[in-house]
């Protein structure tokens, strides 16, 4: 029971961290802060515009794969303990 609890708590912690990043890159960098970031340039992209049309999507993909990795590791720990 205790370990089930730890498992769930750890999962929730991962969710909070990953979803904060999810929110920051899309709603933050891509929308709310877009004008500020547009003052910076990488190559031919204004940074805010780049996040809205490219960067956010790359980060989304990475976030899911990070979550897969973290949860597989957590599942393994949980199984070993049993």
């Amino acid at each position, binding site marked *: 029971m205790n370990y089930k609890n730890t498992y769930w708590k750890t999962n929730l912690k991962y969710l909070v961290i990953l*979803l904060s990043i999810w929110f920051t890159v899309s709603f933050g960098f891509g929308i709310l802060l877009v004008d500020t970031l547009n003052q910076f340039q990488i190559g031919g992209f204004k940074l805010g*515009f780049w996040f809205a049309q490219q960067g956010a999507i790359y980060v989304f*993909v990475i976030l899911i794969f990070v979550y897969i990795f973290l949860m597989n590791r957590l599942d393994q720990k949980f199984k070993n303990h049993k």
Partner: protein
Amino acid sequence: MELQNWIWITVGLSFTLYIAIAIMTRASSTGEFYIAGKGVPPIANGMATAADWMSAASFISMAGIISFNGYDGSVYLMGWTGGYVLLALLLAPYLRKFGKFTVPDFIGDRYYSNVARGVAVFCALIVSFTYIAGQMRGVGVVFSRYLEVDITSGVLIGMLIVLFYAVLGGMKGITYTQVAQYCVLIFAFMLPAIFISFMVTGNVIPQIGFGSAGSDGVYLLDKLDGLQRELGFHEYTSGRKSRLDVFLITAALMVGTAGLPHVIVRFFTVKKVSDARKSAGWALLFIAILYTTAPAVAVFSRTNLIETVSNKAYAALPEWFDKWEATGLISYEDKNQDGLVQYVADPKINELKVDADIMVLANPEIADLPNWVIAIMAAGALAAALSTAAGLLLVISSSVSHDLIKKMIKPDVSEKGELIAARLSAVGAVMLAAYFGINPPGFVAATVALAFGLAAASFFPAIVMGIFSKKMNKEGAVSGMLVGILLMLFYMTKFKFGWFGGGDDKDWWLGISPEGFGSFAMLLNFVVSITVSKFTPAPDSEIQKLVENIRNPDED
């Protein structure tokens, strides 16, 4: 070889492939019909989800819409990809652990009530029908554009094909057909994009190409901003919509994506919980290939269009212009009789009308690619429309045969009987969808946004709270879903179809567009559910155990 022959060959070959797959993978039990016997490998499921997800609109229209809206088009890019993060983190693994057949299954069992199940079926049917009518229309349009048959025959051919493999193969057949369809559609989308990127910027990767400089050494995006300013359009890299509206539309599309039943159900088809997470990752990766290329295509074709036509003599325009003018997608009217094309923002002076779809469709010709590439584009557009239609069809048929008949009306139906009912309802659904495809109600275009708003306002809160709160009860969930979906229906019909007194954008509440209103309705759903659940009895220990079980990893 003639273009028409190439098109018949590629379309014919791809259809033969889909039908062959359907025959090899036909379903023989309800488990196989609804969720492919839970045996789909994660990568295959990722591809199938991607094909299921990317419709004719993603394939043909999205890049064009972005190219006319610039930064504002980002709502689609972020909105239709960010939802997968929510799916992977908040929904897919738990729903897979729950391990039943449909979304109403989860709602009905978790909220121990057939009322909740009924409301969920109602929402699933509304969402799926609004969506599928547009897809059948898309099939018809693609057929008529490429194969020179009329739209009605196009819809009928498409209907027969979908009918054949969805009814025979069920989820199992659809899944493997969708894998093939993904390959066809992504190849068809990327090939011209890569060629054009190379042509314009010398870089074969479109994602990098549109941030590079053209042959004149000026960054492409800076040049486009300049061109847009010159002609009186808004600057490409900044938008016209209010920041609040962009925020809310993006949120509604993300949450709506995560709440669409035909997407969710794909995660029921894998072997274990960890596979559900993996398939969400693969799905988004496969989707991102197209979604990060589309904004590049948008920039290339926008720049190309302006440079080709603006202030040029009409008589000297390239051949593709005449060809697409004949289809009515481009039209030119020489208002000031100077023989030049004035393409500007001011509608009084502007002489050129351009349909957004042309930005993708005319790509191969603009880049001077051989006929077989155009033929592959046709096959790709059909693959996109058919795969989405098939996925929706399955949700409709399982809602009727499983959720309505088996779970609510006639629980003692045999498996064989249920399977027959599933196939019959698929037949009924496809005929209804074809009818709407041939006689589209005026609101088809508007209803795609409606489908997302509805899914966001109804399903997402009920499912998320069903997993993350043990205290959420049936009274809370049902009242939340009802308030959410009814408010959304009210707002959309009021401002889109002029019901309840109608109104225009000045009357929008707090300046929120109907497309963005789903976010608001979703928040209200959460608030109502939580408030009601505080004043009504908590679910009993059986349900709390069910939630506990959903949260735990595989037992194997």
